[in-house]
């Protein structure tokens, strides 16, 4: 049988061949290709385009099972840096397979989408509860693009053209931030720190800028992460943010949502905007996507007018007291404001937001505290055990929370990776530096035995 005679695709078509003829006939056409009579005929392909397929469902299942097995997902992974491979409870996976949920689109008709809208409102409300921020976007693509959007928003609000960014920051997030800003004439100024935020230099730069004429001022906002990309909890953040605010400059802070089970919230230390990665709230790392960009702020009408992306709010049914939910403040968005919109975003990561909301509800206050402190315990145990090995410095920076930088010494990254992979381990993220620095991230999938195994493997590798 030639490939072309396989019609496995018929499964996805609403009408059969006989019906097709009948329908064509009823509207006065002989064949489906006649429906393209208005198209310049030189553009029409005479034969089907030569791509792979059609495959049967069984074939697809077999082929892709094999492809998926080429990935080393069963390796013991210490990779993080923004996303984290955490255990996903079965009820969550089961609920997310509801066709009503994943085959719907944006709730343009709220009357027939109350379930979706309530799930989104519950997501917004729980992230608000966790972070102390009143308004939560629903949603942006990922942490990196949330940073790009937040930077643009701070510059829109302040009508200035520069953002200060505390390094260490993940190189990927920084690169996306640059794409979102520098092509359109905005500036990103990187302020280097040793593992943590260089508060001093940031304040000096802001102070200098503040002495300019109001119209000449450049710095709209500061961005830093808690913990930093190198895992460090900075000190005296409240005072730092107060100082920044004195100069009339805004602050966006990047946070680890799970850390807020135990850490002070961005609202407590008075950050203006908060961003983070929502994948860690119950989605797989999935090769880097789909993820979930989280953006939050305190209620401020002017800021909210400048907010990117969809917002769902709570109201009532007309003529009754029954609660109802719908998309609101759409006049900020591209379909209404067009080139004056606060962002171009349309399709976003709503399904991941719904997922995150259900995950948080499942965890509850005790669950998220347990999850966060369990990660702290694992990370600190592992850091101490690694530090006992000769030639290894762990952690390089302190105080740290879940993630930490380890100096593996003179061994090359390639050799370390090769040796670890052969022992079933993915040994964290490579960090730029003069020696073999790597960012080690833990997961709730790590039991003590697994952490000990990693330490044993490293002790062997470091002797080589």
């Amino acid at each position, binding site marked *: 049988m030639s490939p072309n005679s396989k019609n*496995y695709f018929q499964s996805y078509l609403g009408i059969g061949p006989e019906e097709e003829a009948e329908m064509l006939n009823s509207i006065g056409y002989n064949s489906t290709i006649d429906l393209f009579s208005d198209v310049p005929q030189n553009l029409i392909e005479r034969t089907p385009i030569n791509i792979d397929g*059609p495959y049967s469902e069984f074939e697809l299942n077999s082929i892709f099972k094999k492809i998926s097995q080429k990935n080393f997902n069963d390796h013991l992974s210490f990779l993080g840096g923004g996303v984290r491979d955490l255990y996903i409870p079965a009820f969550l996976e089961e609920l997310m397979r509801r066709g009503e949920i994943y085959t719907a689109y944006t709730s343009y008709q709220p009357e027939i989408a*109350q379930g979706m809208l309530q799930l989104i409102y519950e997501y917004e409300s729980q992230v608000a509860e966790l972070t102390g921020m009143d308004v939560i976007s629903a949603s942006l693509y990922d942490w990196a693009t949330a940073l790009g959007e937040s930077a643009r928003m701070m510059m829109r609000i302040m009508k200035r053209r520069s953002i200060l960014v505390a390094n260490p920051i993940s190189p990927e997030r920084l690169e996306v931030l640059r794409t979102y800003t520098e092509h359109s004439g905005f500036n990103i100024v990187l302020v280097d720190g040793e593992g943590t935020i260089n508060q001093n230099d940031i304040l000096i730069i802001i102070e200098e800028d503040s002495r300019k004429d109001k119209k000449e001022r450049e710095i709209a906002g500061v961005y830093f992460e808690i913990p930093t990309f190198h895992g460090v909890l900075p000190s005296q953040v409240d005072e730092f943010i107060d100082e920044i605010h004195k100069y009339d400059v805004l602050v966006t802070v990047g946070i680890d949502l799970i850390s807020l089970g135990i850490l002070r919230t961005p609202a407590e230390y008075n950050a203006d905007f908060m961003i983070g990665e929502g994948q860690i709230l119950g989605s797989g790392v999935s090769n880097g996507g789909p993820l979930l960009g989280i953006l939050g702020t305190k209620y401020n009408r002017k800021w909210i007018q400048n907010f990117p992306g969809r917002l769902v709010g709570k109201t009532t049914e007309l003529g009754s007291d029954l609660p109802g939910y719908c998309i609101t403040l759409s006049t900020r968005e591209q379909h209404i404001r067009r080139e004056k919109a606060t962002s171009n975003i349309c399709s976003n*990561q709503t399904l991941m937001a719904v997922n995150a909301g259900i995950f948080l509800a499942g965890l509850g206050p005790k669950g998220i505290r347990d999850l966060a402190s*369990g990660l702290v315990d694992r990370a600190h145990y592992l850091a101490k055990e690694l530090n006992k090995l000769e030639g290894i410095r762990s952690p390089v920076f302190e105080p740290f929370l879940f993630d930490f930088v380890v100096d593996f010494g003179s061994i090359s990254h390639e050799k370390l990776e090769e040796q670890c992979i052969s022992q079933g381990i993915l040994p964290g993220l490579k960090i730029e530096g003069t020696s073999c620095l790597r960012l080690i991230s833990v997961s709730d999938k790590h039991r003590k035995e697994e952490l000990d195994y990693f330490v044993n493997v490293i002790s062997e590798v470091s002797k080589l």
Partner: protein
Amino acid sequence: MIHKRTQAKWEEPLILNKGGAGRRAYIPESVNLPKETIPDEWIRKSPLELPQVSELELVRHVVRLSQMIHGVDVGPYPLGSCTMKYNPKINERIARFPGFADMHPQAPEQSIQGTLEVFFWLQETLKKLTGFDAVTIQPPGGASGEFTGVLVIKAYHEARNDTKRDTIIIPDSAHGTNPASAAMAGFKVIEIPSTEDGYVDLEALKSVLTENIAGFMITNPNTLGLFEPNIQEICKMVHDVGGLNYLDGANFNGIVGVIKPAKMGFDVMHMNLHKTFTGPHGGGGPGSGPVAVSEKLRKYLPVPIAAKKDQTFYWDFSNKKTSIGKVHGYNGNFGIALRALLYILRNGGPGLRKTCETAVLNANYLLHHVRQINGLTIPKGKNVPCKHEFVASASKLLKETGVSTNDIAKAMLDYGVHSPTVYFPLIIKEALMIEPTESESKQSLDLIADVFKEITKLAYSDPDSVKNSPHLTSTGRLDEVTLAKKPVLSQLIEKKDIFS
């Protein structure tokens, strides 16, 4: 009378207001290790009032809410421009294979050969379907693809020191994302009017074509569902002044497998994998917006791109210096890219062609029936077949009965049919943009037509019943005006009582 459908009406409280102290749906894995402390200055002081619910309570809550959502799996969803086609279930199964769902994006290349193979296979396949030379899968949505595409155009001109090109031309029928993306990339936007027939006005285009033009962005088939007959001439006109042509691939379902977009004269296009290639719409996303370009634009695409040498796949960073930079923290929405590849392979070339032809047939069949309905008109595309969608207007009905497009949209919900896209494109008054897709059966198309017929008939006999609809959905119309004035955007705002 057509049978109506009552949607579930659960009075389901917010999950935050359910449950009781000590209930726990999910208890994370504990670990037998010494307890560590964090610095005192960092200990959380705010209360943390997340829900405390049992696993069953949570499951029941979400299942009940799901019964108050209309999805493609529930009923017809002719939401124009969104291509609400069936989402194959095999794709959902395969996307959850552990090798795909649990793999970290930054693992060394040797450990992600499966991931790289999926990206590579999709890139190669999209090149063949579009006729372009290079593809990036990185943009995580259609608008992100547009942003990427216009930045590529910008980089191309800048590399040639052609720096005065600061303007993008966009027809007035375009999606709002087009001008928004161009503006985000730092371009000025010139909007040109359409002709009486709904096509690009060549004279209007000519009058704005100068050496300041960086590019022209168009959707084809356009947002009226019509194929631009002069597209080749249009692309040539733009090229003649040194501009580049951008195709918004939102409507790719109307030509996929039948026409290769590059042949029309385009230099760059984005696709919406969640539309044409069945990524589930997820209540608003995730999408995926790959960008395809001609050879001369390859070096400006975001990096890395999946590549293959001998039998080994790797990430190709070779264009890092010329690239516009990354538009996503990692490599885009892999999960949606994978589903798109699965759908394309299930179809093959013959299947995609059949898919496109069937989508166009279904749209024309429905158009044929809607055209005959009293009160509705089809303002554009009088003598040509539409492609995958068409736009009706309820102007006449509004004038004669006071029943608007919005009222029709609401009334449709009572029949278990989602409304079309309304009030878009902006150039059609009281617009209803209707896209049935190839997934719908003849009975389903007949139902949609009959629903329009019954509602418009009712508009003439009992307009108030239409204006007060819907009646059978889980809620009636909502007070959106008060919400916009006092935006209650979370329970925290309710608790703080900000608006009193």
